[in-house]
C-alpha cells in the first residue's frame, strides 16, 4: 500500500472527523437512546405506564372509538396494536397531506388516554436520529445520508491508516499520556466494533434507499412509477365513491389474515376512506420473532370484508427488509437489545475518543504556535459530546417539570420540551467556548446532577419511584431510572477525575493496585 495513499487517508480521516464528528455523535447518541425508545416513552408519558394485556384487543372495539374521532378531512385512520414494549393502542388520523394526529387508547378498557403532551422518544429522539428533525424538503434525510456515507468513509479510511490492526487489537493503555490512551480507546472501540459500526451505518442508508437514490425509479419506470410501488410494496389504492358505506367486522378480517399468515398477527390496521362505500382495510403482519421486517399485507374490501389483494416481498426486497430489520431491531430479543445499546454507546465513545485524540495530540503545538484550532475544535467537541447529553437530560427534566397543557408564547407543551433541549444544547457550546479547560468537568457535573434530578422528579411527580417500580415489575420505568443513575455515576466519576491538579497531563489511570 503506497505511503501517499495512507497519507491521504490519514488526512481525510482526521479532517473529516473534526468537521462532521459533532453531528455523527448526535446521530449515534440519539440512535443509542432509540434502542429503548418505547421504554423512554413510558417514562416521559406516565399515562401510558400500563401493564401489558394478554390478549390482543378487539379491532371492532378500536374502530368504534376511531369512528367517533374521525373527521371528514381524514382520508384514513390507522391503529398500531399493543406489544410488550408498547402497552397502548395508538390511533392515528391521516389527512390528505399525510399529516397525522394521534391519540392513545388503554387496550383493556378502550378508554382514550389524555393527550400525551410530549413527543418523547418515538417522536423526537428517534426522528432526530434519522433526519435531525429537519423536515423541510427532506433536507434532514439528505444531511444524515451524507453523514452516513461520511461515516463509512471514516471507518474504511480508519482501517486503512491503522498501522498494526491485529497486533494492537487488544491494546489499551489508560495509564499514560492522554494522546496515547485516547487513541488506544478510539482504536479499540472502532476495531472491535467494526462489524457493528459498518453494518449499522450501511443498513441505515439502505433503509432510505428510495430517498437517497430518488432518480432510479423515475428514469427506469418513466411514467409508470406506480408499478414499482405496487410490485415492491403491494400497495393497493382506490378512490372514494363519495357514497356512505358500512365497515364489515375487522376482527373477522384479522382472523382471515391470520389464517393466510399461518397464525401470524397484524401489528397495523388502516382503514382508507372511512365511512365510504369504497373504503378498504390494510392489515400488515407483525415481526416479533424475525430479523426481517416482512412486508406481508392483506387488503380487504371495507363493506364486505372480501380479500382484495395479498402481498409478500420478493427475494431482493426481502434482503433489503432483513438489513433494515438489523437496524430497526423491532424484534423481541432483550439480550440483543441490550447488546445493541452497549455497542451504540461504544460508537459514541469511539467518536468522543477520536475528538479527544485530535485535541490532545495538537494541544501543545497549537498553544506554542498561537493557533486557534484546538480552542475552536474543543468548544465544538464539548458541545457535541457532553453538550448533547446535557441537553437530553434537560429534556427529561423539563418533561417532569412542565405542567399539563402548559403553553408559552403560543408553543404547546411538547414544543416547550424541545425548545429547552435546543437552548440547553446551544448554551453548552457557549459555555464550552468561554470556559476552556473547565468545560468538560463542569458539564460532567451538570450531567450527573440533571440525571439524578430526573430520577427524583419521576418519583415525586408520578409516585413511581424505584422501590415501587422494582417491586411491581414496571421494568421500563425502573430501567430508565437505573440507567439515569448509572449515567449520573459515570459522569460524576469522570468529572471528579478531571478535577484540577498539579500534573499537566490528564489520564484514564485508575489508582494503583
Amino acid at each position, binding site marked *: 500500500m503506497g505511503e501517499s495513499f495512507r497519507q491521504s487517508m490519514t488526512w481525510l480521516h482526521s479532517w473529516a472527523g473534526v468537521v462532521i464528528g459533532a453531528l455523527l455523535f448526535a446521530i449515534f447518541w440519539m440512535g443509542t437512546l432509540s434502542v429503548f425508545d418505547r421504554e423512554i416513552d413510558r417514562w416521559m408519558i406516565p399515562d401510558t405506564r400500563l401493564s401489558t394485556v394478554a390478549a390482543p384487543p378487539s379491532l371492532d372495539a378500536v374502530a368504534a372509538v376511531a369512528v367517533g374521532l374521525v373527521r371528514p378531512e381524514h382520508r384514513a385512520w390507522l391503529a398500531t396494536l399493543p406489544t410488550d414494549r408498547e402497552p397502548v393502542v395508538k390511533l392515528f388520523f391521516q389527512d390528505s397531506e399525510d399529516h397525522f394526529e394521534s391519540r392513545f387508547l388503554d387496550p383493556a378498557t378502550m378508554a382514550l388516554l389524555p393527550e400525551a403532551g410530549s413527543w418523547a422518544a418515538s417522536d423526537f429522539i428517534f426522528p432526530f436520529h434519522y433526519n435531525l428533525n429537519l423536515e423541510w424538503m427532506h433536507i434532514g434525510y439528505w444531511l444524515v445520508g451524507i453523514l452516513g456515507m461520511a461515516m463509512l468513509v471514516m471507518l474504511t479510511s480508519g482501517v486503512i491508516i491503522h498501522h498494526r490492526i491485529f497486533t494492537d487489537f487488544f491494546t489499551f493503555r*489508560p495509564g499514560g499520556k492522554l494522546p496515547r490512551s485516547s487513541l488506544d480507546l478510539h482504536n479499540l472501540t472502532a476495531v472491535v466494533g467494526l462489524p457493528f459500526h459498518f453494518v449499522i451505518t450501511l443498513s441505515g442508508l439502505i433503509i432510505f434507499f428510495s430517498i437517497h437514490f430518488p432518480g432510479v425509479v423515475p428514469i427506469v419506470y418513466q411514467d409508470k412509477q406506480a408499478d414499482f410501488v405496487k410490485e415492491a410494496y403491494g400497495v393497493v389504492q382506490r378512490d372514494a365513491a363519495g357514497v356512505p358505506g358500512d365497515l364489515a367486522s375487522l376482527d373477522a378480517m384479522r382472523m382471515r389474515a391470520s389464517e393466510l399468515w399461518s397464525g401470524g398477527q397484524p401489528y397495523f390496521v388502516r382503514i382508507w376512506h372511512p365511512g365510504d362505500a369504497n373504503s378498504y382495510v390494510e392489515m400488515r403482519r407483525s415481526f416479533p420473532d424475525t*430479523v426481517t421486517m416482512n412486508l406481508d399485507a392483506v387488503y380487504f374490501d371495507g363493506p364486505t370484508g372480501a380479500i382484495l389483494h395479498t402481498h409478500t416481498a420478493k427475494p431482493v426486497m426481502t434482503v433489503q427488509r432483513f438489513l433494515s430489520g*438489523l437496524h430497526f431491531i423491532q424484534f423481541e430479543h432483550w439480550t*440483543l437489545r441490550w*447488546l445493541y445499546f*452497549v455497542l451504540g454507546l461504544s460508537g459514541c465513545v469511539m467518536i468522543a475518543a477520536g475528538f479527544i485524540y485530535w485535541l490532545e495530540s495538537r494541544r501543545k503545538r497549537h498553544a506554542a504556535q498561537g493557533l486557534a484550532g484546538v480552542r475552536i475544535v474543543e468548544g465544538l467537541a464539548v458541545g457535541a459530546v457532553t453538550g448533547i447529553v446535557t441537553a437530553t437530560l434537560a429534556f427529561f427534566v423539563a418533561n417532569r417539570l412542565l405542567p399539563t397543557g402548559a403553553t408559552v408564547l403560543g408553543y404547546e407543551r411538547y414544543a416547550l420540551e424541545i425548545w429547552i433541549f435546543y437552548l440547553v444544547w446551544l448554551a453548552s457550546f457557549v459555555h464550552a467556548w468561554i470556559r476552556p479547560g473547565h468545560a468538560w468537568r463542569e458539564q460532567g457535573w451538570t450531567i450527573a446532577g440533571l440525571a439524578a434530578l430526573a430520577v427524583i422528579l419521576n418519583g415525586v411527580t408520578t409516585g413511581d419511584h424505584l422501590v415501587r417500580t422494582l417491586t411491581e415489575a414496571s421494568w421500563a420505568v425502573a430501567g430508565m431510572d437505573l440507567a439515569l443513575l448509572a449515567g449520573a455515576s459515570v459522569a460524576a466519576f469522570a468529572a471528579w477525575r478531571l478535577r484540577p491538579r498539579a500534573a499537566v497531563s490528564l489520564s484514564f489511570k485508575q489508582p494503583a493496585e
Partner: protein
Amino acid sequence: MSDWLLFIGILGTAYLGFALLALGQSKHRRTVKAADLKTPFRSAIPRCLGALALATSLALALLRDGPSFGALLWVTVLTAGAIAVAFTLAWRPKWLRPLAVCFV
C-alpha cells in the same frame, strides 16, 4: 433458565477465546507478567484454542437462537468480549495470569 446458561456460555467462550488470542501475543504476555512463549509453534497453541473457543461461542449462539438471531447475537457478543479482554489487560492484568501460565 437454559437460555440464560447458554448466554453465559456464549459470552464466556467469547471472552475466553479473545483472552487466549491476546495471550498468544508477547506484548500481552509481558503485561500479565508471564514468560514469553519460546517458539512460533508455542504461540500458535493459545491462538488455535482461542479460535476454537470463538467457534464454540458461535455454535452455542446458533443453538440458542437459530441462524439469523444466533449469528447476530454472536457478532455483538464478540465485540463485548473483546472490549472486556482489553479492559482486563488494561486494569486487572493479574486476573489473566493463571490462563497465561497454562502455556509455556
